[in-house]
């Protein structure tokens, strides 16, 4: 996502960014990509709710 895309997205959401801020956010999100690429991949079947189910299973050991 580049600077223009960030500015346009936030404009659509009704938020006006001060000068320079869109570029900073774009850089911040771009930096996240490589970081997240090194994190363990979820399994194909994993759903967002899996964590809650997994956690609650611990209540009946």
């Amino acid at each position, binding site marked *: 996502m580049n600077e223009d895309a960030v500015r346009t997205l936030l404009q659509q*959401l009704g938020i006006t960014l001060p000068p320079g*801020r869109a570029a900073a956010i774009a850089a911040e999100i771009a930096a996240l990509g490589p970081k997240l690429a090194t994190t363990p991949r*979820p399994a194909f079947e994993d759903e967002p709710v899996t964590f809650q189910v997994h956690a609650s299973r611990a209540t009946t050991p």
Partner: protein
Amino acid sequence: MSEPATDPALWTLAEASAAIAARKISAVELLDACLERIPVWQSATNAFIDLRAAEARHQAARADLDIARSGPRSPLHGIPLAHKDMFYRAGEISTCGSAIRREWRADATATVLARLDEAGAVDLGTLNMAEWAGGATGHNIWFGDACNPWGPLRATGGSSSGPGAAVASRMVFAALGSDTGGSIRLPSTMCGVTGLKPTWGGVSRHAAMPRAWTLDCIGPLARTARDCALVHAAIAGPDSNDPTTANAPAFTPPQAPTHLRGVVIGVETALLDSVSPAIRRPLDGALKLLKSLGAELREVALPSMQALLDLGGVISSTEAAAIHLEQMRAHPDGYATDLFTRMQSGLAMPAMHYLHAVRARAGLLAETRDAVFAQCDTLFAPVIAQPVPTRDESRTHTAGDVGRIHGPLVRMTRPFSYLGLPVLTLPCGFDAAGMPVGFQLAGDTFREENLVRIGMLYEETAGWHRKVPGVTDAQAQG
């Protein structure tokens, strides 16, 4: 075991509760002991946003009548508490530390407050906090910074800044805070008290201000682990008003063990080795004491530590931005600039990043269980890597400051938030400047009892909870 103090305000909650049950002190007398401290300590700490002394006196008098008639109905009956100003009470103002909500009145009462009311606790008022619980330092431009009772120029930690300061200065016996990435653990550690971040889903969040739905936990800051357990027992458990609460077995405050033989404590060596030499000695002292009590210390590594931190950050910023979008649009000037700026990043977060962070969580929890909790009862880790910062050096002005200041503060706390695990923080001494140092004990989901049990024996042996800041600390220049 250390002896109780002569001033009732300096007792632990458990001691105060026992004294009420034995009719050695009334709820009104106990409240008066707390109120006597407030003029000096409120001025020194700015812990309260709204002190409700008259209502508290009425509640205490009613508690005395009820106790005289049929005895205390819980260990909290007649005990003065106050809470972070984000737990709603129908008809009352709840500011959430924000200018936008300076006059906002809630139309429902938080389940946690209703449960404390039912237990007979006395509510002394609302406590300071980071704006919208969105900061790790305790600064607040709208209501003034909360100041650390051990040195007013030092930060309290956040976001439960008022609870940390109010409990440490003995204005109240315990306080509820919330923890999304460290907001109970940071102020409890930086103010030298004990904090319990429960398992995600263990305590109802109904009518409590949300910060990030899948990370938020509500729990106590108190003088001891035993006190935290008494408060947690009153608030924990399923709630039909919050469908995310788990059907976990009821939490019962445990008895302190006489030894820790058979207990395996994992030590996160990489985190421990990363702390400043200025705070290392108290942490080593805590480990030595735990070992002398019989615990086996075993070096372990929290797997995927950096991933836990990064993914937790993605969830935190995205959920917070989603919660705040409407208000950001309507009241852009109602936010502190640094917080408003931080929220903007969450609004632009790609959905794929967020969903990756949410989906990866179950696998990372399983990995952590295999690597740590399959062989250890608890995991020992520092809470912060540096001494308590001054308020000036931890003040944020720009987006860059936010990453530089808040990032390092949550480095050791956010991973456990992402995994939804329970964590107990305990004080373990002071650095050379006289500021508190603490550590955290993390456990597997819904194993709060284990943590409290270890914490109770540790604190009874170490006695750090008996150290109370004096007026000279409050007046010292940092």
